[in-house]
């Protein structure tokens, strides 16, 4: 009886060890993350963005879809509430938004800020979380990566960025950009598909 109980406990501990190992899996070191994401050529995911501000009675919600093609093509598309598309392709970033049933190019100066963020997003999607010299990366035990800006100018805009990785290699579950204690933006990624073919025209103006 004692032997059977001990065997059962051993089996349980073994299962726990295996699942912990599997969960730690690809997120236990920067090297391991890079190795596991090395074969990822494309990423497609739906996202829900919620903006939290002290003055908001409820968060501002937006929904969209993201397409990434290695090494540097990105389509960041909002479907609601305000349709807009940011395209990064061959080093050039452009944004278009829908107004009165037509798409127009955005000439706003805030696009420069977004170019900085988009470079960062491309790093994340290709598993290169520790490659931006502007951020101090920390790999936490609970699949969490915390990026803290080193540059004072960036720190004035972004306090820190927290990413939560999925157990599936290459998949990011959430990203939270903390601007300060009263303002942060939370992204939840769903239906992430890796290495599905993406029409190259999606990264270009049509």
């Amino acid at each position, binding site marked *: 009886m004692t032997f059977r109980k001990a065997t059962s406990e051993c089996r349980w501990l073994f299962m726990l060890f295996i699942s912990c190992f599997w969960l730690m899996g690809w997120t236990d070191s920067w090297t391991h993350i890079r190795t596991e994401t090395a074969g990822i050529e494309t990423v497609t995911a739906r996202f829900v963005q919620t903006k939290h501000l002290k003055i908001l009675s409820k968060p501002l919600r937006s929904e969209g879809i993201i397409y990434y093609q290695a090494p540097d093509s990105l389509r960041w598309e909002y479907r609601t509430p305000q349709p807009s598309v940011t395209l990064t392709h061959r080093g050039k970033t452009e944004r278009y938004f829908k107004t*009165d049933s037509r798409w127009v*190019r955005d000439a706003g100066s805030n696009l420069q800020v977004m170019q900085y963020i988009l470079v960062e997003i491309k790093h994340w999607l290709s598993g290169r979380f520790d490659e931006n010299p502007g951020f101090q990366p920390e790999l936490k035990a609970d699949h969490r990566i915390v990026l803290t800006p080193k540059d004072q100018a960036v720190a004035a805009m972004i306090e820190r960025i927290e990413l939560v990785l999925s157990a599936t290699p290459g998949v990011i579950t959430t990203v939270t950009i903390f601007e300060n204690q009263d303002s942060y933006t939370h992204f939840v990624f769903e239906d992430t598909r890796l290495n599905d073919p993406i029409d190259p025209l999606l990264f270009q103006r049509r």
Partner: protein
Amino acid sequence: MRVVPWLCLVVLLLSGCRSLSEPEPVSPPPTAVPAACQLPFLSGVWQLTHAIEATLPGRQPGLMIGVSVLSPADETFESVLLTVEGMVVFQARYEQGRVEIEGGIEPFRRDGFADGLIEDFKLVFFQPMGRLTTVSMISAEAVVCRYRLSDGDQVEVIGRGANRWEIHQYHPSGSLRRTVEAFPGDRGDVEGGALAVPGKIRLTAHGAFGYALTLRLIEAQRLSD
């Protein structure tokens, strides 16, 4: 054939140089603001979220998201401008004539930008803080209320029914400074008690450094009466 472009130019110049004309006053001098002229202005405390399209002359427009909490009765509002991705580029609070910039990045933090934004915001959402001088009918459905402000500017509020109104602000010299037009929006209007918030508001600042702002309503929420 060459006359056509010149005619267009003359028409454009004339429309840009519109000046204040005297409407027929309703006698005797007004003592109360007619309901039609109060329609553009919200009562209670509101949270409004707009997609804001800003256009400078000769340039493509830029897009931002604007979130504002305003209380016209307290003459107070707080406004945040965001990129569509959620980055705060400007945050300011206005309280009874006092402006406090609470956050943001260049070039939005510059004094000129904040001052202009506050003035635009007050013109669109607050009843003119001046003396009502004339009330006139310009058609069977349209009423004009004219106010004289303490700085000499004059403001006309033209009520054309629910969700259709205009505001004209004139320099003391009589030249047109700003125009605000409200339209029912393509997303539909949000009902809020006795008043409805227009789906689209277009503000045009006239003159050499003119610009245009189009505010498309994303959400309107009445926080309290």
